[in-house]
């Protein structure tokens, strides 16, 4: 137990002291009536805690998510009661489904006003319950230290997730005898399931007998910090490995065993061969419907091994033959001991053959289009990828640009992908990139956003300007909600209902925030513009006008088997 000596403090000062004890140095938020005592206390701690005032509470929480994802620290975000707190809900839902550790502190009306429909009163505990790993309301100053220590422990341990603490205004004003103990365990909560060595042996036996094994890896590898263990496992076992959208950058794209992306707009080979493998080893992933397509046919021919930290994920979607519960950092290294060193040249060759087919049918035209046509999204991503040598942190929003970024950026650096995967939150990228840049200031952070998503949170340009945060922003502008338009084209008879966007002049808007900006419409000016964009030490905005009605392929239509993936 790390226990500090007791001292008398105001509740709001105690909150700040707790945050400092938990190692917090950066927080994101937006003040308002019910959280004013806490902001007043923050004024005295400006040397210890850097508070970033965003332009909207949604911006604050997405920034905290971006910060948490790249720094491996808990993201912290503050908001006031009522609308301040409800504006956090999208971010909480996003962090919950993508397992991002957050501690959100919301102010609440004074405890004697609870339930009276007071000004800016909302049942925040009630509305946040379905989208938090844990939440608590505090009405007495004395409850603050224990609640905050539990909150940080819960947020970061086991399968991480967002936690919300709602603190009434009177609890912030009252005093308490403050002492802080870092939470080490909670009797009703077991963050790490025990690894059963028998399951490891059974998994190894299946793998050792396999003729066409395939690994599917997700964010669990990154969250579990299992970089070396994962690499050692696939290299010894010689198994081709494909990633979910949140798993990318757990191992560099160019690693010979990295066979690419799974899912609806993933690679042709990975989707096709999921239906041909004989043993499928899922590591830290949860079989999202965008990965599985039609569940009843997904890898139906294969024995399934699932390495997973969350027992509730086992058999949730895909029935497993061997479930290996536990932290994959430990389970992978044990499994590596038991698997035989093998290679599967003809099986790996199947991936290469299908990759070639995808290149011929899709990628070639995307990367080297007809010179008369508009710039493609893939050209822009490829250009940025080459210029940054695949070393940047890429923060993406949701839609076509997101799929294209994941398909064409050559991720090399560990944990360099920040995207809204599970929830698909448009407007995520700009604020998340702010957080990512503050979480990894030495890294190049590039937000890639569509024109639709950009306009959902573009007010955060004000945050970038105020704090001079050197994030780079690319808007791929097709004047459409492109992914929805693509579906309308393919599945709704080209009835483009409410997907065409009449956009403002983004250049003028960005200039209004005093951020350097450039617009590219012609292919011949793309490279030089990307050079200036990447080389700039300041924040910089790059808008590229891309083909209005370009589509993302390959594609697994909803409800189809992954083996029915379409190249056009």
């Amino acid at each position, binding site marked *: 137990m790390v226990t500090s000596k007791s001292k008398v403090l105001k509740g709001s000062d105690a909150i700040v002291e707790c945050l400092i004890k938990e190692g917090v140095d950066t927080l994101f938020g937006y003040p308002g009536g019910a959280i004013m005592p806490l902001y007043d206390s923050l004024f005295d701690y400006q040397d210890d805690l850097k508070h970033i005032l965003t332009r909207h509470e949604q911006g604050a929480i997405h920034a905290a998510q971006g910060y948490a994802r790249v720094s491996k620290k808990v993201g912290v975000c503050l908001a006031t009661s009522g609308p301040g707190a409800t504006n956090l809900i999208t971010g909480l839902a996003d962090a919950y489904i993508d397992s991002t550790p957050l501690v959100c502190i919301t102010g609440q009306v004074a405890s004697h006003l609870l339930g009276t429909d007071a000004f800016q009163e909302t049942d925040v505990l009630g509305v946040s319950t379905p989208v938090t790993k844990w939440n*608590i*309301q505090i009405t007495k100053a004395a409850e603050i230290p224990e609640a905050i220590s539990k909150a940080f422990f819960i947020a970061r341990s086991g399968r991480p997730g967002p936690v919300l603490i709602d603190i009434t205004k009177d609890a912030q004003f009252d005093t308490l005898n403050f002492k802080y103990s870092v939470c080490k365990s*909670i009797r009703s909560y*077991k963050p790490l399931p025990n690894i059963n060595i028998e399951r490891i042996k059974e998994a190894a036996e299946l793998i050792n007998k396999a003729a066409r094994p395939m690994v599917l890896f997700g964010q669990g590898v990154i969250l579990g910090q299992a970089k070396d263990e994962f690499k050692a496992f696939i290299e010894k076992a010689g198994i081709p490995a494909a990633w979910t959208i949140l798993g990318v950058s757990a191992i560099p794209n160019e690693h010979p065993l990295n066979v690419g992306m799974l899912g609806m707009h993933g690679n042709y080979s990975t989707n096709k061969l999921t239906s041909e493998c004989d043993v499928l080893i899922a590591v830290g992933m949860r079989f999202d419907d965008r990965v599985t397509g039609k569940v009843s046919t997904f890898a139906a021919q294969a024995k399934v091994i699932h390495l997973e930290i969350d027992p509730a994920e086992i*058999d949730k979607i895909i029935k497993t033959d061997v479930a290996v519960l536990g932290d994959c950092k430990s389970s992978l290294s044990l499994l590596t001991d038991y698997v035989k060193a093998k290679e599967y040249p003809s099986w790996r060759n199947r991936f290469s053959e299908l990759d070639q087919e995808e290149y011929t049918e899709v990628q070639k035209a995307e990367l080297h289009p007809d010179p008369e046509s508009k710039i493609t999204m893939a050209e822009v991503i490829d250009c940025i990828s080459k210029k940054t040598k695949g070393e940047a942190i890429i923060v993406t929003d949701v839609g076509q640009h997101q799929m294209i970024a994941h398909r064409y950026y050559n991720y090399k650096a560990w944990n360099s992908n920040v995207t809204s995967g599970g929830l698909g939150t448009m407007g995520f990228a700009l604020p998340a990139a702010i957080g990512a840049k503050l979480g990894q200031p030495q890294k190049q952070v590039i937000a890639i956003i569509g024109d639709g998503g950009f306009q959902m949170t573009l007010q955060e340009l004000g945050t970038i300007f105020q704090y001079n945060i050197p994030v780079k922003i690319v808007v791929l502008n097709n004047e459409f909600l492109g992914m929805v338009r693509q579906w309308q084209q393919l599945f709704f008879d080209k009835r483009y209902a409410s997907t065409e966007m009449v956009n403002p002049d983004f250049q003028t808007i960005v200039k209004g925030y005093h951020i350097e900006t450039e617009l590219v419409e012609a292919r011949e000016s793309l490279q030089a513009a990307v050079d200036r964009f990447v080389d700039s030490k300041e924040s910089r905005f790059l808008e590229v006008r891309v083909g209005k009605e370009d589509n993302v392929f390959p594609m697994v239509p909803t409800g189809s088997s992954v083996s029915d993936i379409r190249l056009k």
Partner: protein
Amino acid sequence: MKKQFTIIVYTENNIGLLSRLSNIFSRRHVNIDSITCSESEIKGVHRFTIVVKMETDKVQKIVKQIDKQIEVLKAIYFENEKVVYQEVALYKIPVSVFSSGKEIEHIVRAHFARVLSVHTDYVIIEKTGHEKETTELFEALSHYGLTGFVRSGRIALPKSMESLQDYIKELEPTFNIN
């Protein structure tokens, strides 16, 4: 095929936990047949008894989701044969009906019910039993005039000898692998 299950959940006694648990059902469009909650054999630990009708694979998944909640010590599901269960029902009958002949007395005797309290203008009858039995009494009394009826919802104890203490032991962090 849907079957009736009894889910027993041991939890900490904290504000908001009931809605956290009920959300797990409502989110999956599952209706709860009955839910009861009170302190368990261990001080500070609460025990929920939840009755649902659903498919076995779905109840397994729901119980995992319940067990995953931070303040849940243990969630377990049982088929009806694996628990001893009971309900209490109360019936409110106007005195005029109660004393208008021998029928009510016969019904009370036949159903092994008892008179719980007598007031100037009404009588409360109590019956313990399975839902089917308390319903049968309800139907019998309905013919004569019933002004109030309430059922407690199921409470249940498992037939197995595992105790809450065993489950708490399971939760203790063990860092040794295997």
